[in-house]
């Protein structure tokens, strides 16, 4: 037995270098793709953000000028993009996240069959992508009286004439928020649901003996602490999902910039400067700001649910 172990050990040290090379072969394809499509773009965005670049001539270094211009000269950014993005991100991000937790928690109180069917219905909108479904929303929110919403409201006598929903400064952002929330119960929602279902039931028994009195305390003191890792995963997915889906305003209204900048979010602002005005450096600076915002949102999530104290 010990001979076998010794042999194994000798084999292990000899094979270690070789094994390390094999490990590199295993990770190589992923690392290559990751580098080309994630790392280099992020680094390029950071570098370009310090340049003036019109996509034709070679970028020229201008230091912090883009950032200074964003803060001091970009009226659209300050007046519309920031307030819109904040409102959208806070309702869809943290708001949608709390909603997904509450839905998952209520589903966990039901019997398996009912739960599976309801969970499937709640999850299935996230299988659609916001942009392809814009086709459908454009019909529901159509601005003439053939639109479904207008037709219903007219029949009910709630409005006198049809509202041009998707071109309206008043309603576009709200519609974007509703549409995104509708399709936001995705992977994070499933993770939280799976987490809740897998909490050890003995914890609850112990909790009640220790004096937990109701469902709310049970959720607060047992369920949430037990599923912190899933809560964190769900939070990160909610934040990323929120910002990834934020191009929806342009898809709904059919124009960039959106009518009177009503649904203009930072993502649209980036594309407007990059692909319409060809100010790539400026667009890159906006991208860097967006990445920092996403990162800061995620840090909050890590503070709340992370196990490492950072």
């Amino acid at each position, binding site marked *: 037995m010990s001979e076998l172990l010794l042999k194994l050990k000798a084999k292990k040290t000899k094979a270690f270098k070789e094994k390390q090379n094999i490990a590199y072969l295993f990770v190589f394809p992923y690392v290559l793709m990751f580098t080309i*499509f994630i790392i280099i773009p992020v680094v390029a965005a950071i570098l370009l953000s310090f340049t003036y670049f019109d996509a034709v001539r070679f970028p020229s270094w201008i230091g912090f000028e883009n950032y200074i211009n964003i803060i001091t000269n970009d009226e659209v950014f300050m007046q519309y993009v920031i307030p819109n993005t904040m409102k959208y991100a806070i309702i869809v991000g943290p708001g949608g996240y709390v909603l997904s937790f509450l839905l998952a928690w209520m589903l966990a109180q039901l019997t398996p069959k009912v739960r599976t069917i309801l969970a499937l219905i709640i999850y*299935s909108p996230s299988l659609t992508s916001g942009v392809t479904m814009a086709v459908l929303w454009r*019909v529901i929110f159509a601005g003439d009286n053939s639109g479904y919403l207008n*037709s219903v409201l007219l029949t009910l006598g709630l409005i006198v004439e049809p509202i041009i929903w998707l071109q309206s400064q008043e309603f576009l952002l709200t519609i974007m928020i509703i549409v995104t929330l509708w399709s936001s119960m995705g992977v994070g929602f499933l993770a939280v649901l799976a987490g809740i279902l897998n909490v050890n039931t003995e914890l609850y028994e112990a909790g*009640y003996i220790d004096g937990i009195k109701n469902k709310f305390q049970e959720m607060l003191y047992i369920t949430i602490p037990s599923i912190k890792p899933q809560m964190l995963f769900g939070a990160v997915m909610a934040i990323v999902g929120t910002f990834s889906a934020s191009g929806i305003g342009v898809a709904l209204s059919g124009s960039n910039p959106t009518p009177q900048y009503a649904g203009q979010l930072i993502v649209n602002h980036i594309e407007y400067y990059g692909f319409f005005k060809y100010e790539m450096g400026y667009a890159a600076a906006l991208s860097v700001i967006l990445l920092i915002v996403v990162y800061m949102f995620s840090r909050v999530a890590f503070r709340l649910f992370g196990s490492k104290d950072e």
Partner: protein
Amino acid sequence: MKKHSKFQGTKINPSRFHPSQIRYLVILTPVVMFMLLPLLYIFNHAFKPLEELFYYPPRFIVERPTLANFTRLFQVTGTSGIPMSRYFFNSVIVTVLVLVASVLISTMAGYALSKLNFKGKKAMNEINTLSLMFVGIAVTIPRYLIVEQLGLIDNFFVHVLPYLAVPVGLFLIKQFVDQIPNELIDASRVDGANEWQIYTKIILPLIKPAIATIVILSFQTVWNSADTSTTYINNDLLKTFAFYMNTLTANTNAVAGQGMAAAASLIMFLPNLIIFIVMQSKVMDTMAHSGIK
């Protein structure tokens, strides 16, 4: 003691119906209706004959269902004279390529990150957790510049390559491989299996639920994505179905186009739904290990 018999914790994941569940059903029903209505609308609209599309006021439920919208959708050709079936075919090829390649790439990397030792492993794990927060849409422009530099504009593979490295996919796979006991792997090493054999014979069969999950996630992203066609492809022959779908209503804004658009939406949506229903228990299995620790 009576208090304990009323112990509420047992009601998480209950096996039988109990009147106390009614309150949750009362709250959940309107939410579920809200989630369901747009989907029901697509179903009904897609099967409406032309005259029902013109009804005023519009009616939600189809009265005489027909496949006319689907046949018209498949017959119609864009302004460039390319039949829709071509876009559909492109999408199928792209999706299959991405699924096969991304499963291979992320399971290999996931196995190495979980069970093999190499320099830089810890850093790579940390970078990957950090990049869960990566929002691809933010770097559309630098990505475009890189794709341009690589000479991939108007190359069919530009639909595939950007979707191969998915941090969430690798993360889920790695978490799942972590559950596999090391003894199992060591035992087969003693039996003389090499790393590749361990990966194909032991790891892959054991992580099927996680594979199912990343298949669904990748399918969803790729099948629904119109971005690569809009951004990187000028040649109409190489564009995808999702892109075509988007142009459909933009060009034909008439009521008649709505029926076709709904039919196309249904074609976009149904494969997602079917795959998810088939694999749903495996997904829940994977999600139980999804936590970030």
